[in-house]
């Protein structure tokens, strides 16, 4: 069954696309980027980003002495 990928050029058969996945992690986040290009070409026709937040915002009340 043909898998179609939504791109800037419309829905494209996945077999015509090169998929690159990059990920990194630091103290703040875990991020995964997925890029699609036509085979042998440089132009990115789709790029998804998934960020998992690790660092929250925090408030600590202080009582008067």
């Amino acid at each position: 069954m043909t898998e179609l990928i939504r791109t800037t050029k419309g829905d494209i058969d996945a077999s015509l696309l090169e998929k690159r996945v990059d990920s990194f992690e630091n103290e703040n986040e875990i991020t995964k980027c997925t890029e699609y290009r036509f085979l042998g070409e440089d132009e990115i026709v789709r790029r998804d980003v998934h960020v998992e937040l690790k660092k929250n915002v925090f408030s600590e009340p202080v009582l008067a002495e």
Partner: protein
Amino acid sequence: MANTQAFCSQAKVDMMNGLHAMGTSVVRATTAADAFKAALYVDTATRGPADTTYSPTGEVSGTNYLAGGVAVTTASAPALDVTTAHFTPSASIVFTNVTLATAFDAVVIYNDTSSTKLALSVHTFGPQTVTAGDFTLTMPVDNGTTGLIRIA
């Protein structure tokens, strides 16, 4: 048994639920939880702790991105983990099928029920662009250690 000076733990949750008003508050139309939204900002914007309300200044723009951002799912009420109150959106925040060509690195969560769109929090990440794709922000585990917003 001695007395213990303390910021009462449950009061932290009650503050998150709008039950204490040490200053002028607002007349609430309902007891229901407020609605919150999430907006994205380019990496040259200056969003931060001084924000008081949602601002369109520096907000991203692009295909399928609506100014003001998307709704935040808040099915889980604030809770208490020992002495730390915590609140985390109950689902990932997803911007679907967007093209955002200018690098962005922050999301602002704000109160969409309030008439002035009061700002709640700013969260940053590495600069990103999205091309005809989805931008997904997955939430941390909702507890007193990792919850997205915490009062300890």
